[in-house]
């Protein structure tokens, strides 16, 4: 139990770490080179710390952070699998890491070739005609895909289509992206089997629907058996079908979104291709599209010359335009390329199969003690409800916090929103049977504690460097930065323990 001071609370005036080159060019007073009113009056008040203080500080911070390398991370919909070290080494090669984006194409042949080949591989996995790697993350892929769909409809004189249909279990980025693309949202109910309610879909489909955004398998970890029928209905109404690829770890080599009838697919390479997630990013969110949408993709796109060379090709007239500067999160793409080349077609299918096996193995061993709202075989993840434990005063959040005491990260909780006290578990394929068995044992123990000693759960975690944090105070009186004279926040409490979420 300890805290680490802020870096601003360390050091002393005059200390520094980094050294620059000796000043070896003739110098003139700044005031002779730049207008006086354009100059900075006071130095930026950055910390003044030595290198050893920096090393200790950030080492201490890292020790206060839990990653996949430290232990099991069953965070549903986030695909927290092992992040291969090889990927890091390849992304660190100077020929990739030390490349300026505006260098001439003939100085970047290997980089363009890598992107070209990655696009081909992602197209093959998704069953799509063409991929762009420009989007920086899944949500960025979503807005890009929706802009492509919008441009497509407009090109056909159907710009009136202003509605996007989204299942009630969808990731929050789906409605946010659709709104950003200036669409209205209609929510579709989930049916008793955990899939899209086809009757409700039929009611909602009309000539103003631009697209249906779906995750398949969805956020319940359930593969929608009606997908072919859903695709037919959407297309008959003139709409487009968008595939949220957050759960693509379940389908590689087993089923392709293109064959299911999807028109646009995004990938989350930081999930499916383990690039890794870096504490919240960077990711990469390439999108693949069916042939009729290729002309609308953002540019530039990599192209292969007749002589085997590569170049960046500007997008055509119908393109939506670029969605960010340069080509995408290139070093993330290098990691994804490495991942896909290492696995090959057989390896990728095994990845998805093993992810599905591990999820079913956990689900099977836990469904007697935790409610399984949709009792059917799952894909790569599944959702439990802690409603029985809640009746004993122990919430899904309490269970999540208690798991931390056992050296494991927590599952996603309170999502999807359609399951009360939801606990969403995604073990991934890279965990040993022993780790899965240990998780089962701990989850069963926590259930037992909810019966015999609920306070052990409701007051958890007990072994972490900090206890439960006061979210209400953080939001009600926000302190978003350190300022000179700030004392650490201490006992300024606003809610009792156990209420915070």
């Amino acid at each position, binding site marked *: *139990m300890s805290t680490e001071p*802020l870096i601003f609370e360390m050091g002393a005036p005059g200390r*520094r770490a*980094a*050294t*620059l*080159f000796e*000043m070896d060019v*003739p110098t003139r007073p700044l005031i002779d*080179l730049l207008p006086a009113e354009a100059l*900075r009056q006071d*130095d*930026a008040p*950055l910390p*003044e710390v030595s290198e050893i203080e920096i*090393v200790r500080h*950030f080492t201490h*911070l890292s020790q206060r*952070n839990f*990653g*996949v390398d430290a232990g099991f991370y069953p965070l549903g919909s986030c695909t927290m699998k092992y992040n291969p070290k090889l990927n890091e080494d390849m992304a660190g090669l100077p020929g990739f890491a030390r*490349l300026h984006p505006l260098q*001439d194409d003939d*100085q970047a*042949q290997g980089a363009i070739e890598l992107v070209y080949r990655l696009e081909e*591989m992602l197209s093959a996995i998704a069953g799509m005609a063409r991929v762009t790697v420009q989007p920086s*993350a899944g949500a960025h892929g979503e807005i890009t895909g929706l*802009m492509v769909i919008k441009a497509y409809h407009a090109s056909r004189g159907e710009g009136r289509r202003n509605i996007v249909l989204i299942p009630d279990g969808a990731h929050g980025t789906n409605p*946010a992206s659709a709104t950003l693309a200036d669409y209205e949202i209609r929510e579709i109910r989930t049916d008793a089997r955990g899939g899209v309610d086809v009757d409700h879909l039929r009611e909602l489909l009309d000539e103003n629907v631009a697209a249906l955004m779906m995750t398949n398998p969805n956020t319940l970890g359930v593969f*929608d*058996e009606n997908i*072919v029928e859903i695709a037919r209905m959407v297309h008959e109404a003139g709409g487009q079908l968008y595939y949220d690829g957050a759960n693509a770890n379940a389908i*590689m080599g087993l089923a392709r979104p293109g064959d299911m009838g999807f028109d646009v697919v995004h990938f989350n390479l930081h999930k499916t291709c383990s690039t890794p*997630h*870096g*504490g*919240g*990013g*960077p990711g990469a969110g390439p999108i693949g599209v069916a042939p009729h949408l290729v002309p609308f993709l953002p540019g530039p796109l990599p192209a292969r010359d007749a002589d085997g060379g590569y170049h960046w090709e500007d997008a055509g007239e119908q393109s939506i335009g670029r969605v*960010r*500067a*340069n080509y995408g*999160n290139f070093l993330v793409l290098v990691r994804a390329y490495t991942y896909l*080349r*290492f696995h*090959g*077609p*057989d390896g990728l299918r*095994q990845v998805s199969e*093993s992810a599905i096996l591990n999820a079913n193995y956990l689900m*099977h061993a836990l469904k007697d003690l935790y409610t399984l709202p949709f009792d059917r*075989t799952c894909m790569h993840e599944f959702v439990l409800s802690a409603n029985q434990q809640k009746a004993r005063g122990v919430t899904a959040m309490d269970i999540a916090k208690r798991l931390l005491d056992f050296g494991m990260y927590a599952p996603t909780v309170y999502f999807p929103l359609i399951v009360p006290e939801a606990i969403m578990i995604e073990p991934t*394929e*890279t965990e040993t049977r022993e780790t899965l068995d240990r998780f089962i044992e701990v989850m069963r123990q926590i259930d037992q504690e909810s019966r015999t000693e609920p306070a052990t759960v409701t007051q958890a*975690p007990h072994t972490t460097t900090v206890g439960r944090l006061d*979210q209400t105070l953080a939001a009600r009186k926000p302190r*978003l930065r350190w300022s000179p004279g700030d004392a650490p926040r*201490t*006992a300024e409490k606003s809610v009792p*323990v156990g209420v915070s979420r």
Partner: protein
Amino acid sequence: MTYIPNTPAEQHAMLRTLGAETIDDLLGAIPADVRLQGELNLPPALSEPALRRHEMALAGKNLNLDEALCFLGAGSYDRVVPSVVAHLAKRSEFLTSYTPYQPEVSQGMLQATYEFQTMVCQITGMAIANASLYDGSTATVEAALMAVGPGGRGEVLVSRAVDPQYRQTLATYAHARGFTLREIALDGGATSARDLQAHLGPETKAVIVQQPNFFGIVEDMPALEALTHSTTALFVAAITEPASLGVLAPPGAYNADIVAAEGASLGNPIGYGGPALGLFATKADLMKRMPGRLVGETVDDRGQRGFVLTLQAREQQIRREKATSNICTNQALLAVFATVYLASLGRQGFKEMGVQCVQRAHYAFDQVTALPGVRPIFDKPFFDEFAVTLSQPVSAVNRALAQRGIIGGYALDRAYPEQGANAALFCVTEARTRDDIDQLVRAMKEVL
């Protein structure tokens, strides 16, 4: 090959506990007509050593900045980065963690992000900053969206001296989102105050000006700010070269409402332009309209200081279609790189870096423009980039320079056709020594 630990025998035993024999017994929900027949059409797997060799060969086809002297900037900058930065930021506890949804075991990332938010405020002079956005271009888009407001329309004015790729990205979003984007003309390489005044009106929601601008020129931000604030529009400072903040007045000092910047060069690999690091800072009273994640300080149930993701009511996972932005995954690890980097430079080093950029770029400007066949295009003050006209096309000059191990300037006609094929934008940061610059000058003398 895979990273799957369980053997086929173990997997079979696991299947048996489920009452299944093969994995296919678990795949019944996938309709037969969408089950993939055969294998994915992908190249075969490569072993780790074979893959390493293959990628080293790919990487070897590129001319990297350790092999060549780079005088190319135009939005991406070659920096001196201390060894300590990557050693700390790439520690696997940061690298292999997810967004810190469980703060009790994520204090390291949360505190580092809080320190990052603080440092962004310190260098920009703004009140608050978020935990990062994708890159400078999308940060500029988010600034425009924030000014226009959810469901809002109206007009956003962007200086033609804003990075061309940023303006293209803005145009993409403006079209999809339904607001109007207009460009403000240039006057001698700087934003025309007269043209800005002519375009400002009650419909103007934001004015976006880059400092220093795409040509490296130091804009008269106070004058442009005053014009903008004679209306209700927000004044947005876009920054692609963060080293400038060591010597130039920070946006907070000229009353900018929003800062949207590219922070990748603060300690991160240049990486062919990605991943990059969008910085976003604003005034305190605009907090609730701000996009992106925020980390806040709070207290735990033991009375200790701690950090959490906060004000999430603005964000997509809570507000869904009413969110201020759709961003979820951001650039967290790059923010850690930037935090270690800025701590390492510190108060003195950050200023020194800015001063070195100015001095080295002006030395290079004097040397380069003294060459026959080279003349400056503009006569305005600049930071570490300057535009010149050469006696030959930039493409030809750059090819010849590359043979001499030099990456030449940016061909301005790529985005400004009126400048012609001979116009080049050179960049000289703190990473170019006098010897490097003299090599460029000698090479240009041979080439021109």
